[in-house]
């Protein structure tokens, strides 16, 4: 888990980045504090040709059908820098309301692929539901698969390829989670409090004394 601004590792339940102090409040200043309405496929950057839109929509629909708890969204635009790309993804998934996504699918299950037409970079942001199942390495693999296409300006093919790779990874994770859910539960378990150990010991002793009195 990393900070979208300084890309330093942060604590599982950190309210703010301990390195740069980043939080949602900071990003609201950048992109707006009000909730925004958006569609899951928004091509503000004009990278996807009109003829190619169905291809992307088909790939997205396929993903959404296979993973009923999740949805994938694609947003292209101009974000003026890589740092802003990460922050924008973080902001949109928290402030955005995707009109064409069923209400049963909250943004916790969203995976947002953002492409910056200006800096020619792309990033992936995902909701809390995928915290246990998706890693930064996985998202890097998806983007790597699309890299060659994007390098040639074939944005549609790149997006489709990235979504397909994402499907592949999540299918694998779903199977693994079905066999061994505890392994994934541990990844997102609540962090232990600093004094939890001694307190537990004390309470345990108290419980034992109570039982002895009985």
């Amino acid at each position, binding site marked *: 888990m990393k900070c979208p601004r300084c890309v330093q590792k942060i604590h599982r339940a950190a309210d703010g980045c301990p390195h740069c102090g980043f939080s949602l409040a900071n990003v609201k200043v950048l992109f707006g504090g009000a909730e925004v309405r958006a569609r899951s496929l928004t091509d503000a950057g004009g990278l996807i040709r009109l003829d190619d839109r169905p291809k992307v929509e088909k790939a997205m629909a396929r993903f959404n059908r296979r993973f009923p708890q999740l949805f994938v969204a694609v947003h292209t635009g101009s974000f003026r820098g*890589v740092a802003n790309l990460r922050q924008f993804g973080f902001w949109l998934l928290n402030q955005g309301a995707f009109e064409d996504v069923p209400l049963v699918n909250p943004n916790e299950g969203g995976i947002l692929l953002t492409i910056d037409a200006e800096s020619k970079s792309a990033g992936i942001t*995902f909701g809390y539901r995928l915290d246990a199942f998706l890693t*930064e390495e996985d998202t890097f693999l998806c983007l790597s698969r699309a*890299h060659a296409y994007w390098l040639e300006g074939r944005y549609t093919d790149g997006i489709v390829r990235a979504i397909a790779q994402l499907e592949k990874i999540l299918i694998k994770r779903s199977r693994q989670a079905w066999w061994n*859910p505890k392994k994934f539960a541990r990844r997102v378990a609540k962090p232990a409090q600093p004094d939890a150990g001694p307190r537990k010991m004390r309470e345990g002793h108290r419980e034992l004394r109570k039982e002895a009195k009985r």
Partner: protein
Amino acid sequence: MNRWPFLIFAALTTVAFAQEATLPEWDESDRAAVRKGEKGGFFPGSFLLTDERPWVQADEPQPEPLAVPAPTPDEIAGDLQPENQVPESCWATYFAQRPDGFLVDPQKLLKPEQQAARLQFLKDHAGDSTIDFYLYVFDGSQSIPGEVRAEELIERCFQSGRPAAVVFYFLGSPERTELRLSPAIADVVSPLEQRRSLQSSVTLATEKSGKIEQLEAFCQQMSIRLYWVERLMKGDPENIAAVATPIHDTAKTQSSERKEKLFALARQWGPQAAAAAGALLLLVSLRLLWKAKRKYRFPEFEVEPRLGGEHAAGIGAVISFASAALPPGGQREQKPEYLHRA
């Protein structure tokens, strides 16, 4: 370099020496003296100078020629006849009329039990086929009398009645076998096909070692070939192709046996194999369909929100595709932008 002067010189020298090297000539008086031995006595090669052999005495008695009587006409005729001809006593049985049985062996070359077996086989063949199979058995070293012409025999004896195939089989020498078809069949089956049928049967017979085994193999194959001839007579083009199969040789026979075995296996296990393959295909198709339609779910865990985000704080990778010089591998380590600028 000019060679002509040397060549001319060499030619002239040769001519000059050739003219000089003339052979010596005898003086007649010297020759007479040498013949009489008056001059020089004996010397090597002297007999070459004489016209007669010196050691032959004129008064030596000459042997008289032997008085050998000239061969009689009967002897000359006897030399022309083969040594081992079919005995004349059997000619009538062999060649006089259409035989009563399918096996013709007046010389008793086959043992009774062998005769019975062959006869039974030929009868069975006649029961199954419209073409009768007449087997004339001769000894391997015997020859058919010159007076008998097979064509005439067939015309005379097998013109009417059921179509027949007449085989002159020489025990132990299957390669000498002759096949004649009755006119009804011979008109339909070309000589080439007849020869093929015969050669096919002979080939199979020669693969066996014993005389009787050869005869059995021959009869079996000939019976099969006659069956196809029968089909050919009915005018089925498919059967014509079957009859027109190339002449058997050992390798081809083996390969056809192998094929037959394969076909038999295919007939035996084909339906089961096809059913298994179909079931497998169906299973694979169903699995593919199931995979395409399958929905994948994840267990839901309670996650503490971070950085103030209510719904999401999963920050994935960012990749730049601005330049081909910067491949994905070089971007694996994600760094903040200010570090990039530094």
